[in-house]
């Protein structure tokens, strides 16, 4: 388990107010949107804002968004590949 994925779990619980979920409960390879956590399109947009604000990575295309938010692992990979910090 990498640190970024762990960090994202915590942020997810915070911004989506998943008060009944612990980081350990989240399977980073499980379907994120429409899965067990009950995450929907508004939550995705909330995550888009968080990813841009915290990691400087912009996701403003629905097709990219669907891939990026398919699982938490995919999101972490996308951030790693596209963050300004990673490319410098």
């Amino acid at each position, binding site marked *: 388990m990498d640190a970024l994925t762990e960090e994202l779990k915590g942020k997810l619980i915070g911004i*989506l*107010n*998943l*008060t*009944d979920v612990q980081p350990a409960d989240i399977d980073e390879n499980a379907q994120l949107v429409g899965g067990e956590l*009950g995450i*929907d*399109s*508004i*939550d995705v*947009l*909330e995550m*888009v*804002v968080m990813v*841009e*604000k915290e990691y400087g990575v912009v996701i*403003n295309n*629905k097709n990219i968004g669907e891939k990026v938010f398919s699982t938490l692992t995919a999101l972490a990979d996308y951030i790693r590949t596209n963050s300004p910090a990673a490319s410098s």
Partner: protein
Amino acid sequence: MTAGNVYIAGVGIISPLGVGLAATEQALRNNRSAIQPLSLFSLQNPPALPAAQVNNLPASNLPRTHTLALAAARQAMQGWAQPPDAVIMGTTTGGLLTTEQLLTAEVHDQGQYCYHGLTTVAEAVAQQVHCPGRALTVSTACSSGAVALSLALRMLQAGQADWILAGGADSLSHLTYFGFHSLQLVDPEGSRPFDARRQGMSVGEGAALLLLTTIRPDKPLGQLLGAGLSCDAYHPAAPHPQGKGAAMAMQAALDDAALTTGDIDYINLHGTGTPDNDLAEAKAIRTLFPQPPPLSSIKGATGHGLAAAGAIEAVVATIALTHDLLPANTGCRLPDPELQLIPLLQPSSQSAAAVLSNSFGFGGNNGCLLFAQPDVFAAPPTRQHRAPLSIVGCACLSGAGNTEESLAGLMQTQTIAGMLPLETISANLPARTVRRLKRFPRLALALAAAAYTDAGLEQTPDSVFMGSGWGALSETYDFLEKLRQTNEQFPSPTDFVGSVHNSAAGQIAITYNATGANITSSGGDYSFEQALLAADSLLDDHSAPAFVIGADEGHAQFSPLFDPSILPGSSLADGGGGFCLHRKELPGTCQIRVPFYQNDTAAGAIDKLIAALGGKQTLLSDYGLLMAGIPAAADKAGREQLAEFLSKSMLNIPLVYYRQFTGQFASASAVAAVLAVQFLHRGELPSGLVAAGEPTALTGKKILILGLGTAITAMAVSGP
């Protein structure tokens, strides 16, 4: 009046396309778009996104929404000397743009925020047109204008008024400009509904009002022949993917007018230009119409006027009916093959005898209006309701807790004012259900759940009538605060969706699959009474049970700024009351009515109130308790009105000033109404509420709940 004919006697319109009917028609004939990069207010991060704004609006001391509404009202009343009996406005922003400017300037003076409340738009219009009666406000996001017109239609058909001025108004604001952008719903190239490359809407503004009447004018501009309301009960912001709710609303409007799809000559689409809306709307139309008539959305020309949109498009419908102009779907160049509908790409000079106009909004809120040329189709029936509104269940939340705890609090301490912790409010709701809900929607949903449990119904309520003076203060505050803190970069999309007044009613609909009418009313301190009036007008003798709820949240920053009844240094109170009502004679239940609601408190109002309650003799024989609601901000006026009422009616029964124990908040009357039901079921009043020596037994008598101050209202609750 022998039939339910409702005529359009006058129209007023001010939109980004221009001022007045002639300018609007000319712009539509020219297929001109008013969408331009926003310039109304400065932005920290240019370039500005395309938007549609009204230019050259005369300077005014009033907020922009009010100024727009007054301009439309002036036009609509032109040539009509007598004032309308009622005004019904749809609005979502009210004085928000002014509030945003005041907050930025760090103004802390309560008086400066006096036009924040949605109700102040309707009140300003009523004042300008000298309307003596009701000034009502509905706030159902982007369907508000259409829902206001639907409510007007029902009130006219029920004989509650002969003339109603109704429509919608909204101004651009930071909340809507940045809010829709945060949802990625704004097309960077400007709205192009039904186009294959469409990427979203263009936020707009404007106002339109229609003078509706049951008395046929010499030259009517058309008839409002039918209306259909529905709720997707699917998602807070996204439409039902198959357009199920949209189709229901269209079918309901057709049924209401007793027409079939073949009678419709033109459909004015909601057509915002967002990929999901247009797809859902196209599916809904294809479901209903084997061969759809000509259709178009004008939002590529006008932008999306939000609460004004349904009213602006109602005026466009009258242009289609009387000027043989079917407007083009401005902005659409390459119709999306997936939609399987080709809108009008150029304006068309065809006549139309019947027009459907769609409006959909957040909360899955749908309103569809059916307009027709005068006297072409058979008159719709009148709508006199006979059965009473029976209370099958009710519950309240106060600073003391739920219904039982509130009653116990009254016995022990005579005060139940305060604010419950957030977790306590929603103790009866699953954590997952409320994770995105802040204080206002939690109050509302918790009240609905408790009222439903109290009712013990097998059938779930089908419609929702919500009243709130201030709506979702936490979401609105948090959105604007995050916008400020992040230099206009990262406001929360969740807060934007939650900020609309009808978000709570939408949540209730989703939870209970309530796919019928879903109306949120906002009338300041009389909001719950307005919700009851809406329920009374919309529920017919065949309706399923309905939720009627009044709730308001106390907010540490906003409440003291907005609510003049929160005096400096006083602590906040909030809560509300929820009801499951059924229009049916049901033995063993209490019943509730609103015999009187009038905004004009001038001389003669108390005499009218007494007459509406059946006169002095009825008052003396029927009522056993008077609960008076006098907002602190109108204490002097309210006490004078009460003194006049008591002196003229000679009523001498126990009197309680309920705000003394509920605390000061806009929908305190909803708590009072729930407590009244509890008193009636118990047959007696808590002894601490009445003066020593006064009777506590109700002996089969009714309870009268008066709202006093800036309006005069009466609710009558009768026992089982």
